[in-house]
């Protein structure tokens, strides 16, 4: 045991003496691992970044909200089964709410109708295009996750009376009102004036594609009055009381919807129940695909690094054949020699790994600084994984030459010039 410890310490000492003695060679060898680790960690960062941004995006949708729509989320092959479904009208939400109130042990909280369009918001010469406009009821406040930066949502009365009021996403408000507070001001959509009564706090974007900060919320009656679109249908968002019992709540909602729709038993649903897990189901294979492909490609870089280490360890063994012979003559056992060369290759690899981690974490900071919207994040898990991976690379790459060295015949090795 003691012997092993002394041999280990001696091996570490030799390894570092060897690395410092051949600086250029060590740097070049480590470079392969550095590139490999940088590639792998950046890939890992991108994947975890993707994951976290995905999670936070889903949280924006509301993990306790079920969407009732004509079409399901996700790809549809048998479109003919959906296209003739009756559109959902806001009255469905009213009917649902009546049923929810009548049911004593319901898992559902409230149903809210939402009509959606995209358009341009103007104030004087300023305008913001591509604004997501949601016409909804006064209960909308119960289902959204965002906070108000200023002002408030419209009341049920305001909604029912189709008052021309609106709540703006923070980006819209900031674009239109640079110096004055937005609340109390008037904006125009298609020539119709709306009074701003509230501004939402910043929420960020959904999967980096769709910003929640460029939206406008208005009473659904005002939406219908000014923009029409009644025959296009709406969607119904239903908040559940307990998100842990989401599946049961869905079953209940399907039952209620079938009652509202007056569907007969055996008839298939003429509406779709959508939720965030539909996104998960769609995105999970994509995520996995990216992860596997990415790690494979970057793993190749690491593999090339490993070959570099293997090569240089072979060279090192060859160069030091006589030294190996001498050490064996002085009593070095096979495992001593094996350990010595393995530690050497592991040292080069782990040093490369550490440099790689430093490089990629600073790259990560830099990228995050230049493109703040890019979903990229550095995790301590990644550091541990990179260190393990680089140590593993060192072992795998160093094993064959070290094994060869440990098996050298001392007579032959001593004679080697």
């Amino acid at each position: 045991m003691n012997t092993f410890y002394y041999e280990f310490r001696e091996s570490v000492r030799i390894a570092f003496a060897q690395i410092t003695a051949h600086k250029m060679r060590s740097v070049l060898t480590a470079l392969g691992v550095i590139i490999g680790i940088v590639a792998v960690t950046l890939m890992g960062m991108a994947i975890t970044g993707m994951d976290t941004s995905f999670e936070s995006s889903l949280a924006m949708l509301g993990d306790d909200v079920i969407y009732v729509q004509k079409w399901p989320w996700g790809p549809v092959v048998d479109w003919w089964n959906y296209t003739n479904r009756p559109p959902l009208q806001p009255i469905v939400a009213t009917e649902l709410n009546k049923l929810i109130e009548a049911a004593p042990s319901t898992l559902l909280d409230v149903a809210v109708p939402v009509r959606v369009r995209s358009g341009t918001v103007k104030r004087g010469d300023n305008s913001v295009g591509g604004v997501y406009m949601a016409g909804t009821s006064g209960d909308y406040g119960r289902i959204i996750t965002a906070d108000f930066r200023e002002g408030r949502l419209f009341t049920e009365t305001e909604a029912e009376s189709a008052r021309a009021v609106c709540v703006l996403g923070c980006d819209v408000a900031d674009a239109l009102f640079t110096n004055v507070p937005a609340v109390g001001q008037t904006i125009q959509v298609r020539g119709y004036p709306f009074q701003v009564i509230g501004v939402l706090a910043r929420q960020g974007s959904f999967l980096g594609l769709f910003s929640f900060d460029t939206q406008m919320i208005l009473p659904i009656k005002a939406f219908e009055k000014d923009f029409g679109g009644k025959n296009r249908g709406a969607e119904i968002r239903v908040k559940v009381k307990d998100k842990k019992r989401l599946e049961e709540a869905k079953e209940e909602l399907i039952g209620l919807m079938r009652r509202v729709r007056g569907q007969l038993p055996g008839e298939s649903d003429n509406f779709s129940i959508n939720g965030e897990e539909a996104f998960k189901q769609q995105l999970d294979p994509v995520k996995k695909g990216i992860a596997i492909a990415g790690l494979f490609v970057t793993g190749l870089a690491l593999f090339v690094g490993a070959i570099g280490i293997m090569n240089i360890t072979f060279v090192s063994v060859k160069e030091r054949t006589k030294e190996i012979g001498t050490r064996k003559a002085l009593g070095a056992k096979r495992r001593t020699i094996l350990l010595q060369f393995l530690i050497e290759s592991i040292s080069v690899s782990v040093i490369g790994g550490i440099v790689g981690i430093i490089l990629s974490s600073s790259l990560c900071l830099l990228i995050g600084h230049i493109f703040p919207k890019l979903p990229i994040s550095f995790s301590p898990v990644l550091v541990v994984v990179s260190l393990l991976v680089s140590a593993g690379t060192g072992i795998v790459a160093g094993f064959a030459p070290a094994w060869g060295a440990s098996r050298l015949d001392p007579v032959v090795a001593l004679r080697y010039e």
Partner: protein
Amino acid sequence: MSTLRTTRPIGPLVIDIDGVVKLYQMGTETIHALRGISLKIHRNEYLAIMGPSGSGKSTLMNMLGCLDTPTAGRYEFNGKNVAAMVDDELADIRNREIGFVFQTFNLLPRSDALRNVELPLIYAGIPSAQRRERAQQVLEEVGLGNRMHHKPNELSGGQRQRVAIARALVNKPSIILADEPTGNLDSQTGIEIMALFEELYKLGNTIIVVTHEEDIARHARRVVRLRDGLIESDGSVS
């Protein structure tokens, strides 16, 4: 064959070789390096092994040094059967029982004298404080007390060989096995090194020198001459 005459009492048997044969396969040809050698070496002998190249001198030295095992025959080192040992057991015997001195010194170039001398003690599992102390002591014994932290390239040839001898002595081995110890030294330095061996012999060490130089062999008390894989003569020198 003359009988062994010695002024000293014969110590216990260290090396006992009986009918040792060593064959090598060179392509299709089988080379008989040793054809049946029997040799007994006792504690505190000073022995020279001589012979022209191809005589089996190097093979015998490798055998004595436990670097190699015989194809046939018996080899006992301090009563232990070396012929049947595996690699790591041989490494252990070399570490504890044999001190090697090479023609080319074979010092580790990037380690200082002290570290070079410490090396066998590392393999023996001696704690570092004891290692250091023992290595310093041996270096002083060979007259390098003031050169301990010099690297081999900062030392003269004679000094390097002294470091190597210190390294051979550090584990208090049963035998010191020197292969052409003066081969890479000028004659004056060679004489100094042989004087050191003489001194070590007088201190009770067992010394085996392998050489092809009569001048060197003359320092030994007993000379074994090999020819064609057989012992040609084995006798004391006056």
